[in-house]
């Protein structure tokens, strides 16, 4: 399916706008986009890729910790704190928000609450990853078609 550059750019604007409106991304993501230029054309992609790797490690670690009996809430909280930090740095607002809830369940040693948060985190991460990958794909298609995006 071929689309012209204008159509692709419109799709990109629409998709990005939706991601902000639905709270997947916040202003920090825009901040990262501002840091990208001709000398660092893949900056956002690189940061996001690091974030994906980080996410997968942290989610795996949190899952492993929650399987232990008794659960080490201090350790799980440390992971949630880390994840909250990196999600804030890339503008992953929904992930960050779930991390905050996760931390309060750790504080009250609520195993059930933690498990639900982990599930939610896995979902949010998955949704975000798909959305961002689509965004980058659109950007690539625009570049390939000779266009540009701000």
């Amino acid at each position, binding site marked *: 399916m071929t689309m012209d550059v204008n159509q692709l750019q419109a799709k990109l604007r629409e998709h990005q706008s939706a991601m902000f409106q639905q709270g997947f991304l916040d202003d*920090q993501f825009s*901040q990262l986009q501002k*840091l990208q230029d001709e000398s660092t054309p893949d900056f956002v992609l690189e940061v996001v890729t*690091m974030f994906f790797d980080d996410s997968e490690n942290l989610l795996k670690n949190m899952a492993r910790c929650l399987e232990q009996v008794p659960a080490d809430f201090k350790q799980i909280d440390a992971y949630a*704190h880390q994840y*909250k*930090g990196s999600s*804030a740095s890339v*503008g992953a607002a929904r992930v960050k928000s779930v991390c905050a809830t996760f931390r309060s369940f750790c504080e009250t040693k609520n195993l059930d609450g933690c498990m639900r948060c982990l599930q939610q985190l896995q979902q949010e991460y998955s949704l975000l990853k798909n959305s961002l990958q689509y965004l980058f794909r659109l950007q690539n298609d625009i570049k390939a078609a000779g266009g540009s995006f701000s």
Partner: protein
Amino acid sequence: METDGVVSIDHVSPEDSQEVHVLAVDDSLVDRKVIERLLKISACKVTAVDSGIRALQFLGLDEQRRTSESDGFVPSLKVDLIITDYCMPEMTGYELLKKIKESSMFREIPVVIMSSENILPRIDRCLEEGAEDFIVKPVKLSDVKRLKGYMATREVKVGSHDRRSGAEGVGIEINNKRKLEEEEEISDVSSSPPSISTLSSSPFASSPSSSPTSSPSVLASPIRRLKMSNTD
């Protein structure tokens, strides 16, 4: 000079010695990448390391180099600013700050602390220990722009003051100003809060004087951001 353990380092040639060199310390890979880019885009040379221990090694202050202060060891790259995360395993940013301020060779270097947590006692403790500023994460371009002001300040003050009293005097002055600003801000904040991003980008625009050292609004901005973050 050993570079193992240093995660990323710019090659600085003698002609580049005019450019500001920042040592960034953060255990998060994502945050290191972002802070590095923020600094580079603000025309700084950057050395980014992943721990306080590595930072001390880079400066030549680590345990293994006890002799560094007496044998005249000078890091090949002069450091103009240290920016460090607070929460790090093994050595916190606060502990790193203390070690730097205890060193006669490096105590003059401005140290800025970053933290994702907006905890006033923590901030106060860092400022009292001599931190130049405290930035609530995530770090934005406007935060980094403000930092460049501290480095200019330092150049001005080292020339005209006695080393010891100069550094301490300015540190105490900044702390007092910050406390005053804080008291003023408390009443400000309760009325309709504008967005965080507009506040943090305003300091230079609203500053009545062109000199960053004398402008209270520059010093006020980290406290403003902290207050606004509370509404999240």
